[in-house]
């Protein structure tokens, strides 16, 4: 019998076959091995995949990271500089001990994955890759499995009481070819509270996963900025599981970037839990920004809110894929979703796919999606009161983003975000 001719492997298949796992302790090796098996079974994202219909995965999955020039912010003040926080710095995806504060914070234990992963037993083994794996159904998220398999650095944050100040993960981009993979875990014990801040462009290409276990009655705050290196690419995932009466609040501001795919996968597993995810994104030209959110209600009386706003200029593209899945028995669910784009020039585009899938009969879910230009009547009104056109346009743009920014509970953090949004608009004033 003749052997069948070997089919030519695609670039994705070649990359998968060539992947090798980093060394580590027993639990980390087991998690990485399992993730690689998952990944090989699902394959890397392809252009024809339904979940990648609006965003081309090529540059995120190819073996080499495309080059990304560094952006000179011109000595601008550090993000979150006005907030007392614990700074943890990564340069091109590698922890920088010298630039970081001591990893000591009241109410919190912080360790590096690079070290904890070498041990044979660790609490993180019950979370690392576990929430990611749960998030692989019903929709595959191969880049997250890739991350779990390959990550060697990141932080493991165990919150055992109210954290005394926010923890700021700072991602510095230094090399124009860097390909960074970071995997963080945040575990909040019952009735604790913590705030995680993230900022910086991270690398030429950045793959990041954060798994968040929010215990009963605990509160997790997350404020992230992704800016402003335009050529950088990022694929990020947040996987969160929420216990009874817990709260999860995440806000992301994105300014610039040729490729950003932010996925957020949340499971409400305890009654009376709350999850809010919000984003404000702004970009010009070949800016491409994708928010993909999947919220599963699997308990009673939970509330979820998705608020995503994008300001798109000169041909920029915005994508929103947002889903609320209400399982049978998740009665009294309150789900809200809004995605809106403000197109400042006609050739920009916004592609939105809002979805509701409901198996309980006593729920209130609503969703809306709009695409529009600046309100001419409002613009005229402001100008008739003496506000110049450019300033009036900025004021209306900030007003458009306000609903998303208001999702940040802390006033000082909200102020930091607002001043960055204003700065971005000011620099583009005609």
């Amino acid at each position, binding site marked *: 019998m003749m052997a069948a001719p070997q089919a030519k492997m695609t670039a994705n298949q070649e990359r998968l076959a060539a992947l090798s796992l980093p060394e580590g302790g027993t639990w980390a090796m087991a998690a990485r091995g399992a993730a690689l098996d998952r990944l090989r079974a699902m394959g890397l994202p392809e252009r024809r995949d339904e979940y990648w219909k609006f965003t081309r995965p090529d540059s995120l999955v190819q073996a080499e990271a495309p080059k990304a020039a560094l952006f000179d912010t011109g000595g601008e003040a550090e993000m979150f500089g006005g907030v007392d926080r614990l700074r943890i710095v990564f340069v091109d995806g590698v922890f920088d001990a010298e630039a970081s504060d001591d990893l000591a914070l009241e109410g919190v234990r912080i360790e590096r994955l690079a070290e904890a992963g070498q041990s044979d037993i660790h609490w993180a083994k019950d979370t690392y890759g576990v929430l990611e794996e749960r998030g692989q159904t019903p929709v595959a998220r191969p880049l997250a499995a890739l991350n779990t398999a390959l990550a060697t650095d990141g932080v493991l944050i165990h919150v055992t009481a109210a954290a005394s100040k926010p923890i700021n993960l700072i991602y510095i981009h230094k090399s124009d070819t860097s390909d960074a993979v970071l995997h963080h875990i945040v575990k909040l014990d019952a009735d604790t509270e913590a705030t995680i801040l993230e900022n910086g462009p991270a690398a030429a290409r950045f793959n990041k996963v954060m798994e968040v276990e929010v215990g009963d009655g605990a509160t997790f705050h997350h404020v992230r900025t992704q800016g402003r290196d335009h050529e950088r690419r990022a694929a990020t995932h947040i996987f969160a599981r929420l216990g009874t009466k817990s709260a999860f609040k995440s806000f992301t501001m994105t300014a610039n970037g040729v490729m950003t795919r932010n996925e957020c996968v949340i499971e409400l597993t305890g009654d009376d839990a709350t999850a809010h995810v919000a984003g404000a994104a702004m970009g010009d030209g070949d800016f491409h920004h994708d928010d993909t959110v999947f919220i599963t209600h699997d308990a009673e009386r939970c509330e979820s809110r998705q608020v995503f706003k994008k300001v798109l200029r000169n041909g920029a593209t915005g994508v929103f894929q947002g889903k609320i899945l209400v399982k049978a028995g998740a009665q009294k669910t309150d789900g809200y979703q809004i995605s809106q784009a403000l197109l400042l020039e006609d050739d920009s585009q916004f592609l939105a796919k809002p979805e509701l899938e409901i198996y309980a009969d006593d729920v209130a879910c609503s969703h809306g999606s709009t695409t529009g230009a600046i309100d001419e009547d409002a613009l005229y009104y402001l100008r008739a009161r003496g506000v110049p056109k450019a300033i009036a346009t900025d004021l209306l743009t900030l007003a458009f983003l*306000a609903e998303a920014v208001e999702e940040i509970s802390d006033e000082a953090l909200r102020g930091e975000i607002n001043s960055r949004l204003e700065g971005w608009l000011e620099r583009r004033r005609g």
Partner: protein
Amino acid sequence: MLEIKNLHVDLEEEDKTILKGVNLTVEAGKVHAIMGPNGSGKSTLSYVLSGRDGYTVTEGSATLEGEDILEMEPEERAAAGLFLAFQYPVEIPGVGNMTFLRTAMNAQRKARGEDEISAADFLKLVREKAKTLKIDADMLKRPVNVGFSGGEKKRNEILQMAMLEPKMCILDETDSGLDVDAMKLVSEGVNALRDAGRGFLVITHYQRLLDHIKPDVVHIMFDGRIIKTGGPELALEVEKNGYADILSEVA
């Protein structure tokens, strides 16, 4: 103060002529009223003077203290001292009323080469003016006109006028949608601003607003022209007999 000569205006989209030669001069210290049936061009006149898009001036001129305002951007007209109290004030979600007022005030000051008002002075001033118009702290904090009743919106217009202290105020059907009490409040606000250096052009359908804001001169507008001008008694005549008599008299 405001001098309008032979003003002809087309509506851009419909290729329709709305104003067909308006002549009108408002002197400093005087209150002029324009009355006229629906569709006579009263609101168009106010929009053209304030610089709204969608209108083309085909002939004539409009000057404010000798300066050609038709060539100016809307914000330049405002800085030059022109103010239009809108018939339908616009709701602006996400922009706080106070932020709006302060931005407008400072933008005008900057355009005139003056110093910005300090936060403390602004706050003091806005509280004082708001109080006389019965505008509470909550209304000041809320987004511009969002969730305001018809009366609240009109009071908010007068508050802006009081804060910005324009030279020439145009009130476009400020009485529409107002109950008796609100009309009184708004009129008092306007009367408090009457000043030897300030001109007013009050556009209205009804005489009743003119009971509160007493005009010096009343004009009747019809089909894009001012067809009759007189004293306050002209408004009373309209109230009594409608426009029919005047129209037949002119025709």
